[in-house]
Every structure is written in structure tokens, then in C-alpha cells.
């Protein structure tokens, strides 16, 4: 397999403008530019999931080794999905190409490639829909915006549907709410009918299916990872915490994105969760089986997503917990909010979530019975149930990045901000066109956070970084807070490249720093075991 190309210099990356090429887009064949796409899915990973046409292949291969009847498969698949999803069928029909979405996509804003305008990315598929399903398309062809489904078209689909992070920003501005994410989801489903996934998605899917989490951590490894974090907590705070895994009869099952269990800086966020739970004396447990809140299945197909998601309820039922608490993760929460109960519910074996600390009933989670940790923590802070020392975060100037999914697939906007305002003194917002429902994606969501497509990620992350740079120059921002594991995995590289000097921290890492534990030692270190400025001197004195 080819080595990942090195990312070009910033000036080279930014050497583009938004003027479209002279040639019509239908006459512009796809160019697989190294650094902008992921490796093809390995056969063994598709086999584990019983997905079709499992084989090893590379997108740069001339012959993708498609099944003989591949066109029929796609057309049938298209028809099937049009019946199953009104969103899809409707969005194929009603776009007027007004162009409001065009300059809203972070990949377009970072590359200038017109096929990254959401409207054109959708037209890649619409043109085929028209050709095979509409009368004008059948009769008039090109004149009606229709074209044949060829191998080149398929390759173009693959390239551009894996250049969309399903962030839904375009959908916010569309007068009909057309959501490119829906088109991309369907496009990827169709590609998966032919075994055309990326390995960065197929691998984690197979891992998650077999071992319970994306990297394939085995139960004893999860435990030792967490024990390692608990040792760090003891060093930093003097507090000894006992972990709890797969414990039956606990009140709450806590599910985090697995990134928080093993990879920096997510692990610091995990330390924040663990400290909070211990301080509250929460009766909770974590599962090594349902050890993944995230779901790369969603970037493959609806069925795959459901198969992976099923573990959460199954484990909650097995352990006999009352309700589920979920960690900081973006697409995990879109799925919990909009899909989980529909897929794998009803969760009638659980109880309506009630905070054991404040007695607050989480009525907005009455059916799904899963609460977002920032809802839980904001409630604690509002009722003053935990003590915090804001000054421990005084050396930080913090801005907050809304992750796409919690912003546009849920509307979780104020909870994390409330927490941040309660635990730090220096919180500033990025420009309003780049936050909340208009937030920019990290550029690596929906399974694009691989290494081999770093150039693409840097381009896609440019609009977000651009806004961070603005507040860094204006307010000296040095922390980009977030509530998403993919953000924590991808934004550090993005910041190092575009805005050096900005650290990426989960909200609960910052909470962990400020949280005053009963009987803790004087804090001189933050959760990263770095010196806490100001505090170390006091300690010396």
C-alpha cells in the first residue's frame, strides 16, 4: 500500500479560488489526487460484517473488480432506498439549484472544487436518478440533467461521497431543508452494495462488531487503560478511584466514545468523567462489550449502524441498569437522539432518567432513556452540587467548537456553554457565522479521520481553523473546547497546522481540572500532568 503523502505547505493548500472551471462538471472526470482519499476497504473487514463483494482493492486501480451486474445492483438499490426514505426521494426531486448551499460546505471552502458544493455533490447522484427514474431524464438525457451510470460516474461518487462529513451545514441554509448528509448516506449505502467502502471505516466497523469498539480494544486492555488513567488521577489529585466494569445492578450504564478510553487528548476527558462520577458517588458501571458510543456503521449503511448500535441497549438490559449516560461524542449523539430508539428500542426495560444527585427528571429523554453528560453536568452545576475552582483554568482562554451532530442533529448548544462559563473565567465565542447551527465541521467527521487523506482533512478543517485563528489573534485563545471524540482526534493536527498553540480539550477535561474533590491534595498539575501556572508557585511558597 502506498505511503500517505506529506501534507503540502499552507500556501500551496490555499492556492485556489472559487471561480469554476470552464468545462462542464459532467465533462470533468474525477481525479484521484493523493492525500484526498482513503484506502479501499480490505476484504477481511467486509467479510466479518457479511458485506458484499469483499476483496482487497485500491481506489487508484483501473479495475475496481465490480460484480458483473453492478449497474443493476445500484439501480435496484436506488429504487429500494427511494421507497424507504422520503427524505432521499424528495431531495432528489425538489432541488432548484438556487446555490444557497454552495459556499456553506467546508470542503468547498477549503478546496474550491465545485463538486464539493453540496448542490453538485447531490447532482452526481441526481443525474443518475433522472436518467433511470424520470420521464424527462429518459427522454432528453443531458438536456434534462441526466446521465448514464458508468464506472467513471461510480468512481466519482466514491471520491465525493467520501468527501462529505455529513455535517448538515448545507441543510441549515437550504430553503427546503435538503440535507446533503441524507444523499451522502444513501450514496455510501449504494457503494457498499458493491464492496466500495474505505478501510478507515470498514476496519473500525469490523472491530466494533467483534470487540465492541472501533480500535478493537479487548476487555482487559480497556480495563488496564482506565486503570492507568485512574493512577494518573491519583497522582494529580491524591484521590484513589475504583473502576467499575460490567457490573450488574448498577443504576447507570455509562457509554463513552472509545477514543476517550485510549487516545490523547480524549483520555483527559475520560479522566474528567471518572473524577466527576467518583466525587458524586454515582452508582454507575462501564461496559467492555458496549465500549463504543461512536458508530462507524452509520458511515457504511443504516443496517450496519443498527447492528453496532444494538449493543448499547442489549448491555443495558443485561446489566439491569435504570438508565444510560452518554459521554462527549458528536455523531454518537445524533444517533442516540434521532436513531437509537427507532432502531433498537423500545427501551421499556429502562426507567425514565432521574439525576440521583439533584432529582432532576430528564423528561426530554423519556423514551430513549439516555442522557448527554453535558445535560447531566449542567444540571449539577445549576444546582450547585459540585464545587469548582475556576482559577485553575485561568491560564486558558477558551473558545467552544460546536460539533456538527450535536448542533444540527440535536440542538445541544447551551449545556456545554453553561458548563464552560461555570468552570473558567476566560470564555470567548468564535464569530457567529461559524458557531451553533452554523458551526463548521472539523473536516474529519463521518469516517474521514484517516492519515492517508490528510490533505483533504486539512482543507476541510480550514474554515473551522480560520475562525479559531481569528479569536486567537483577537483574544489570545489557546484552548478549543469541544464535546466530540472525533474533534479530539482530528482537531489537534488541524490546530498544529493552521493555528499552532491552540490545545484541544473536551469540556469534561476542563471540568476535571476545575472540579474540587473531597480530600484532594493541592493541585499543581492539570489532567495532562502539566504544571498549573500560578498554582505551582503557591505550592513552592
Amino acid at each position, binding site marked *: 500500500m502506498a505511503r500517505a503523502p506529506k501534507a503540502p505547505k499552507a500556501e500551496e493548500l490555499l492556492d485556489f479560488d472559487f471561480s469554476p472551471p470552464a468545462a462542464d462538471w459532467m465533462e470533468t472526470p474525477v481525479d484521484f489526487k493523493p492525500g484526498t482519499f482513503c484506502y479501499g476497504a480490505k476484504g477481511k473487514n467486509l467479510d466479518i460484517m457479511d458485506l458484499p463483494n469483499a476483496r482487497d482493492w485500491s481506489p487508484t486501480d483501473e479495475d475496481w473488480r465490480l460484480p458483473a451486474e453492478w449497474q443493476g445492483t445500484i439501480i435496484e438499490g436506488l429504487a429500494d432506498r427511494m421507497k424507504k426514505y*422520503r*427524505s432521499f426521494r424528495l431531495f432528489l426531486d425538489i432541488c432548484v439549484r438556487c446555490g444557497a448551499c454552495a459556499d456553506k460546505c467546508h470542503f468547498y471552502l477549503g478546496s474550491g472544487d465545485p463538486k464539493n458544493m453540496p448542490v453538485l455533490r447531490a447532482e452526481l447522484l441526481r443525474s443518475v436518478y433522472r436518467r433511470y427514474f424520470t420521464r424527462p431524464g429518459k427522454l432528453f438525457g443531458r438536456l434534462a440533467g441526466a446521465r448514464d451510470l458508468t464506472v467513471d460516474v461510480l468512481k466519482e461518487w466514491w471520491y465525493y461521497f467520501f468527501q462529505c462529513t455529513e455535517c448538515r451545514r448545507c441543510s441549515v441554509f437550504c430553503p427546503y431543508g435538503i440535507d446533503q448528509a441524507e444523499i451522502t448516506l444513501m450514496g455510501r449505502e449504494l457503494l457498499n452494495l458493491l464492496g466500495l467502502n474505505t478501510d478507515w471505516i470498514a476496519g473500525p466497523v469490523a472491530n466494533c462488531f467483534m470487540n465492541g469498539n472501533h480500535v478493537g480494544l479487548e476487555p482487559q486492555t480497556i480495563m488496564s487503560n482506565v486503570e492507568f488513567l485512574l493512577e494518573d488521577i491519583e497522582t494529580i489529585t491524591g484521590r484513589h478511584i475504583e473502576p467499575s466494569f460490567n457490573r450488574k445492578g448498577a443504576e447507570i450504564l455509562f457509554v463513552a466514545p472509545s477514543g476517550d478510553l485510549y487516545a490523547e487528548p480524549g483520555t483527559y476527558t475520560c479522566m474528567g468523567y471518572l473524577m466527576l462520577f467518583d466525587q458524586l458517588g454515582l452508582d454507575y458501571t462501564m461496559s*467492555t462489550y458496549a465500549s463504543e458510543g461512536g458508530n462507524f456503521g452509520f458511515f457504511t449503511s443504516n443496517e450496519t449502524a443498527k447492528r453496532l448500535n444494538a449493543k448499547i441497549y442489549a448491555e443495558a438490559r443485561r446489566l439491569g441498569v435504570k438508565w444510560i449516560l452518554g459521554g462527549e461524542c458528536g455523531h454518537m449523539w445524533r444517533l442516540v437522539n434521532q436513531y437509537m430508539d427507532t432502531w433498537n428500542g423500545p427501551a421499556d426495560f429502562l426507567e425514565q432518567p432521574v439525576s440521583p444527585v439533584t432529582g432532576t427528571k430528564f423528561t426530554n429523554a423519556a423514551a430513549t432513556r439516555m442522557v448527554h453528560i453535558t445535560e447531566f453536568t449542567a444540571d449539577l452545576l445549576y444546582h450547585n452540587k459540585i464545587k469548582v475552582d475556576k482559577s485553575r483554568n485561568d491560564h486558558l482562554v477558551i473558545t467552544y467548537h460546536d460539533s456538527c451532530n450535536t448542533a444540527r442533529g440535536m440542538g445541544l448548544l447551551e449545556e456545554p456553554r453553561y458548563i464552560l462559563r461555570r468552570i473558567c473565567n476566560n470564555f470567548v465565542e468564535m464569530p457567529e457565522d461559524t458557531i451553533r447551527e452554523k458551526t463548521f465541521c472539523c473536516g474529519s467527521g463521518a469516517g474521514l479521520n484517516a492519515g492517508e487523506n490528510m490533505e483533504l482533512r486539512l482543507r476541510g478543517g480550514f474554515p473551522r481553523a480560520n475562525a479559531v485563528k481569528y479569536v486567537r489573534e483577537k483574544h489570545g485563545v489557546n484552548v478549543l473546547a469541544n464535546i466530540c471524540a472525533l474533534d479530539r482526534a482530528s482537531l489537534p493536527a488541524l490546530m498544529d497546522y493552521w493555528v499552532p498553540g491552540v490545545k484541544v480539550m473536551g469540556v469534561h477535561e476542563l471540568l476535571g481540572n476545575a472540579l474540587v474533590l473531597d480530600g484532594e491534595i493541592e493541585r499543581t498539575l492539570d489532567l495532562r500532568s502539566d504544571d498549573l501556572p500560578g498554582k505551582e508557585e503557591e505550592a513552592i511558597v
Partner: protein
Amino acid sequence: MKIWPSFLAALALVLLAWAGVGLFHWQTLFGVVIPYLAFLTFVAGFIRRVVLWGRSAVPFRIPTTCGQQKTLPWIKQDKLENPSSPWQVLGRMCLEVFLFRSLFRNIRTEKRGAALGFGSAKWLWLGGLVFHWSMLIILLRHLRLFLNPVPAPIRGLEALDSFLQIGAPLLYITDLTIVFALTYLFLRRVVVPSVRYISQPADYFPLLLLLAAALSGILMRWFFRVDIRAVKELTMGLVTFHPLPPGQLSIGVIFYIHIFLVSCLFAYFPWSKLMHAGGVFLSPTRNMSNNSRAVRHVNPWNYPVKTHAYAEYEEQFREKMRKAGLPLETE
């Protein structure tokens, strides 16, 4: 250029009506038969298209949330941008349908050297809104030709639309605004490079057809006047299903050009992107409440899937789990 096929098509339609009535005197065809067929196509095609959409399931509750969710009681919910009840959804939909709320959010993003800049971009919203409202008022105004006696609200609308009292017959404000708005919408497709790049014949054609229909109406009112009484006799004949033989009514060719272009628009409607008029009501990202965590949403085609059960997992890792001291279901 993708404009020319659309331009030629629109021009051909004008010429067709002109020749049909002006040269061949097919008044009944253009004044009665085609309008009936066009209207029938419109209604049947519209219903068919909506039924097609309606027969597709809404498996998941996927509103695009554009504001704060309903959550803890002390956090203010943005009820119109993130509705959690049917009434709030109704409010959101009214904003979308009547005021184009989402388009009003539009911002322009520019690359300024190594930075991106954001600017206001309300022109598309304004142009779209002005066109659609003008269109609605014009349609309602035309009811004066289909109702007898003309109801007071229609008379009122007529008076309001012509309250400037310019010229004789009076100038309609919406005649001006619709032409301006359509011209703007057309020109931006021609002039703005990125919009030109994404535009297709199917985008230019309806604009040109609408523009031609509007202009033919304006020409008829101001330049090639026709006997309005005869026109109303014809239109009343249509809506009472007793069409008069229009050959006996002396109405100028311009009227037949106008009614033919409008007929074409009606007939074209259900087969085209103009169906966004019906589609906007069905858009799952806008017409659903964001309450799927509180109220279960059922997917009609939900089916059982193969999962990797805990028992299989324990089987797979039993020894390792035992060593790590994890509780086991079966020893």
C-alpha cells in the same frame, strides 16, 4: 451554454401560439382545449408526485435543528428553530413557507487571501420572496376573471395592487415586482460564475417561461389591448364547463399567447423542480419535531439484524475476562 435550449424552447412556445391563432385561427385549441388539458395535467401530476413522495416511508426523525433543544427547564428552548411539539413545527413551517426563513440565514463566504470572510447575502432571499409573493397576488388577482360577481376581497386586492393609480388601465405593482424579481433570478444564474456552473436548462426554462407569461400579460394590458369583457366570457365559460366557442369572441392573439404560456407552465409544473412548492411541506428536516428522545418514532420497515451478542463476546474473550477479574455470565 445551457441557456439556449431553454430560450429557444420558450421562444418556440410563443411562436406556436402566435401561429396557431394568428395564422391558423385555432382559437378553440389554444383557448379551451389546451387550458383544460394543462390544468388537468397540473392537478393530476401534482397529486401523483405528492402521493409518490408520500408512499416513501419516514423511517427516522431527522429535523435539522437550528437552535437550542428542549432540555433542562432553566435553559430556554428555541421553539421555532428546534421545535419539540406539533404547534412549534407549524410555526417553523409557516416561517419557511411564508418568509423563507432558511434562505434568510444565507451568508456569503469569501476567500480573502489566506482567510475566509463572511458577509451578508440577503438578495437571493429578497428576490425569491418578492417573486413568490408577487406570483401569489397575481394568481389571486386573476380570480376576477373566473368569478362573477367578483368577491370583495379580490376587488380589494386589485385596488391595493394598483393603489399608485398610474396610467389607464392602472399599473399593478406586482407586474413590476415580478418582472424585476424574475430578471434578477435569471441574471444571477447568468452572471454569478458558481451559480452559472450549477445551472441546467431546467433552471433557465421555468424562469424564461414565467418571464414570458408575465410579459405577455403586461403587453396585453398596456400595449396590445384586448376586449376584457370577451376574455372574461371565455374564462367564465371555462370554469363553468360551458366554454363558448372563442372564435366568436374577438380577442387579440396576445391573449392566446398569454394563456398558452400559462398553460405550458401549469403542465410543466409537476414534472419539474417547480414541485418544490409541494415538496417543502414534506421535507423531513423541517416538518418534524425534535422529540425522538422523548417520544418513540417507529420505522415501518424496521427489521431485525444480525448482531454480535454478549454471549458470543464472552465466549470470544472468556479467559481474558476471567484473568482481568471481570464478572462472567457463564463459567
